[in-house]
């Protein structure tokens, strides 16, 4: 071993200190470059039009501008969406399995008059025909439908998260450089994780709907696969960065990889693992409302169906339900956080 003393300049030697200013011409050049880049991309993404239209809309709202395309569009949708649909009315003679003695809760049968325009084949003119129709009225029918769909959404998120945890544990093991069996398994696991992470849930769901059909299976799989990539990566990185000392102690007595991981790593990384998993649960809850748009079950599927049929009142009910759902989740999360900290 060689130990050298720290070099100290001889006494009396002149030392020139120089501290340059924090910015130079090069920084200015960078600034100009960045601003130019922002201007170009802003132009390409129509940011100029966005500003103009928004300004016009604000102007219209405060009475300065006469007309605004944005305000017109929004108010048209807004009026169509109001009021939200709460009840449901079904024609009795279209329901095959209605038991008149046991109606669903809060519902009742009513006779409604319906006026229909019919073509009279003899006169070839439209005539108004009045018809007596028996209908089943469910005052909270649609709210209940949405509630059931919301529960399904919750279940999709839950199972998606469960699936992602189960998948990511072996992935994380092989993607941790210090535990993977060899270079090949390491690279394969890392590659697979990147693949899972690179495809967004919606796109995965799009394909899985083709494979599994409409419904929650595709949703659960889509959420689970994407999140498995995320969790696999973060679990693995925590294993790699975990304190080496306890692992060394267990390696020294020949405890074996799995047992070392269980006793030397897992207890140390567990709080982080819980945090990652909670994040994924939160993300999946929000994503589960969306994957239905491509037919993968849950509230999104209901939303898409109603939207496509121009039933904006129903859409409004769904949007309100999603808002309440997310709001309640945030409250719950705040509670849990307060409890844990």
């Amino acid at each position, binding site marked *: 071993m060689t130990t050298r003393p720290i070099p100290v300049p001889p006494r009396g030697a002149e030392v020139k200190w120089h501290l340059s200013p924090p910015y130079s011409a090069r920084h200015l050049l960078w600034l100009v470059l960045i601003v130019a880049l922002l201007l170009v991309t802003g132009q390409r993404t129509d940011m100029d039009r966005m500003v103009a239209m928004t300004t016009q809309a604000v102007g219209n709202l405060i009475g300065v501008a006469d007309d605004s395309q944005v305000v017109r569009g929004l108010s048209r949708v807004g009026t169509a969406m109001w009021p939200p649909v709460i009840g449901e009315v079904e024609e009795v003679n279209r329901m095959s399995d209605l038991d008149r003695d046991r109606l669903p809760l809060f519902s009742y049968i009513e006779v409604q008059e319906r006026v229909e325009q019919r073509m009279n084949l003899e006169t070839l003119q439209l005539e108004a025909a009045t018809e007596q129709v028996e209908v089943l009225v469910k005052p909270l029918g649609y709210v209940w439908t949405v509630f059931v769909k919301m529960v399904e959404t919750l279940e999709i998120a839950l199972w998606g998260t469960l699936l992602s945890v189960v998948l990511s544990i072996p992935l994380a093991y092989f993607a941790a450089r210090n535990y993977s069996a060899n270079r090949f398994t390491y690279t394969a696991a890392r590659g697979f994780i990147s693949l899972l992470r690179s495809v967004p849930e919606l796109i995965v769901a799009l394909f899985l709907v083709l494979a599994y059909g409409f419904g929650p299976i595709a949703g659960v799989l889509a959420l689970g696969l994407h999140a498995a990539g995320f969790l696999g990566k973060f679990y693995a990185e925590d294993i790699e960065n975990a304190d080496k000392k306890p692992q060394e102690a*267990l390696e020294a007595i020949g405890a074996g990889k799995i047992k070392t991981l269980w*006793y030397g790593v897992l207890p140390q990384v567990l709080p982080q693992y819980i945090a990652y998993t909670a994040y994924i649960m939160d993300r999946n809850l929000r994503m589960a409302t969306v994957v239905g748009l491509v037919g993968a079950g849950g509230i999104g599927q209901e939303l898409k169906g109603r939207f496509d049929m121009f039933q904006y009142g129903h859409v409004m009910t769904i949007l309100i339900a999603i808002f309440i759902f997310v709001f309640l989740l945030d409250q719950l999360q705040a509670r849990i956080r307060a409890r844990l900290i």
Partner: protein
Amino acid sequence: MIRFESLNKVWPDGTHAIRDVSLEVPRGQFCVILGPSGAGKSTLLRAVNGLMQPSSGRVVIDGTEFNARTQSVLRRRVAMVHQHFNLTNRMSVAANVLAGLLPMVSTARAMSGWFRPEHREKACELLAQVGLSPAHLKRRAGELSGGQQQRVGIARAFMLDPEVVLADEPVASLDPKISSDILRLIRDAARERNATVLCSLHQVELAREFGDRIVGMRDGQIVFDGSPEAFTDECVESLYHGAVWDDTTPEEAAGSSLALGTTNVSLA
């Protein structure tokens, strides 16, 4: 018995940490290794349980050579007490001690934490022996003081009734009173099992008090080997001299240390 046979270690960066070390430590001996920082004490100890692969030479434990084939069997017989305790901080004291059994229990048993009653009893006994109380069992290891953590480390090391105990500066970060308590614990537990102890230290006084034998190392070589009585203050002086910065050039320093090496070996 541990035998080092012309052991060499050159790290990838070119550091020659162990230079042709041959040493034989009989069964049951408490052998203290002294030497300045960077002398290669840790490197030498870590050759015994394969945490370090020697560049050449071999280590023989009770007639069995340490190599890739015998490693898994030999590691169970060699325990280690670490300078930084190396406990799993967020795990309970009890689990840390039971972790000392891991090579002997099935993966299912280890993962479920369902250890045999006799093993749990043994953990408790050892914890009592090192001076901890039942109240400590469920505490997180990281919450204990350094001295207490090292006691847990010792209990863990003796769970498998080792034949060899490696202690790499086990008291480096502890106060003098606790230091000698800890060394006494290691010595007594080892004597009870007739285990060989290889212990590196930085405290000469403790080395003289606890060592049956003192081995002085410098620049990867053994420069002193003898009884504590033979390890005089002059030996201490020459062992550590030159390791501190002085005006000599590295070449001079290397030359003088070589000279010292020969005098000390003859001294032993």
